[in-house]
């Protein structure tokens, strides 16, 4: 299982590096992938931050509270986590484009 997972991650990385840079930046996320990310955002981010993003062990992530934070630093928090807290790095499971998509969803406000 773990081997397969690691292999598929490596495969993903290789595939990404084969893509022309412009394409990997420009290609929009598929509708299917967006649905998966939305589910991940509400259910799995929601495990700590609350299904309504009003906070739990992790801080609240409502649009009002995120308003004064830079989008780039929020994306970096998703990708690399916050050492010393329970926020893990998600870079093994998400790429930067996907992390950015999730931050944008949070900035719009999500409801389960």
């Amino acid at each position, binding site marked *: *299982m773990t081997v397969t997972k690691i292999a598929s991650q490596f495969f993903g990385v290789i595939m990404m590096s084969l893509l022309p840079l412009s394409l990997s930046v420009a290609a929009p996320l598929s509708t299917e992938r967006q649905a998966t990310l939305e589910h991940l955002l509400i*259910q799995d981010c929601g495990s700590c931050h*609350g299904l309504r993003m009003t906070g739990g062990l992790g801080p609240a992530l409502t649009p009002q509270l995120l308003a004064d934070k830079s989008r780039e630093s929020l994306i970096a928090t998703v990708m690399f986590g916050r050492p010393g807290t329970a926020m893990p790095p998600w870079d093994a499971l998400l790429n930067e484009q996907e992390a950015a998509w999730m931050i944008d969803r949070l900035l719009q406000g999500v409801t389960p």
Partner: protein
Amino acid sequence: MMRRIGTVVLAGLLTACAGQPSTQLRGTGDLGIVIERAAGSVQIVEHSHNTTLARVEGLGDLSHASVVFSRDARFAYVFGRDGGLTKIDMLTAKIDKRIIQGGNSIGGAISQDGRLIAVGNYEPGGVKVFDADTLELVADIPATTVADGSRGSRVVGMVDAPGQKFLVSLFDTGEIWIADFSKSNTPKITRFTNIGDQPYDSMLTPDGRYYIAGLFGEDGMALLDLWHPEKGVKRILDGYGRGSEKLPVYKMPHLEGWTVAGDHAFVPAIGRHKVLVMDTNTWQQTGSIDTVGQPVFVMARPDARQIWVNFAFPDNQFVQVIDSETHEILATLEPGPGVLHMEFTPRGEHIWISVRDKGEVQVWDTATLKKLHTLPADNPSGIFFSDRAHRIGL
């Protein structure tokens, strides 16, 4: 005319009563609650025939909701994320009382005598205690303020303990508290400080003697012997992951009940895909069992012959069953994506598993390791059976 209406109404009421199952006598020993966390509803279920009896709605935000039961096992107290505390009559399937007691809560407990309900809150950090009948506030215990003074510590790991006590751990300030309500409703608080970095959850042994807090911020656990609180909190499993790099933890593990078989206790490692085994006489680690992912719940079947484990994202489609004697993995089951919780029937012949992304609660036979039944449920999370009413620390 008035009299005729009266008669018709009365006849209607009688018919309604006769037709309602709630007026038939039944016990509550086989009842339970399934949390439908996104919908803010719960199902009342029974495990003699594996059916849903009713759904109760309007419970607010049930992210991370948990349940305790009244000592007559008729009422379920549901603790919601939005600070809601809801008392449900499982026989009539109605909300008996509901209050919003805090801003953001994590779980609660019922006192030894069944008269008090305590809730641990993230916001405002602290503990609130209520009369179990009326849900009127009895005591309000603010948490220690965090170092920068901005707020109170988040409170986790709330359990009841013998002697009319509640125990909690403070995530941000690294403390364990005993709140003793045996003398009056103004509790005597005993605070143990510097117990370790970021206690994330706790459990109590079934005899009510040992309280153990898991640490997120460092490798180890904190042990308090309630027979000898004067001896203070002792560090156990210290540095269990020595030398190996921690893996990301995509969901916080839970400690629930006490997973012990013979002289061995089984607990989730943090940041390692392992279940740790320790000797309960010496509290030293005696082994570890490799698992398919980051363990979340590590639960012993009531006869302690098997240990069942579920996992954090992205491995939450699996459940592994461990032989408690040989520590071998007996089976890797795949109930489906989003396994969030498991609950054994009181004597352990079945286990109910919530499978969030399939919208199902599954009933498995623990002897054959086969799935027996499926009940539809809306994003189910916690499953709680009423036999918890009579168990210390649950």
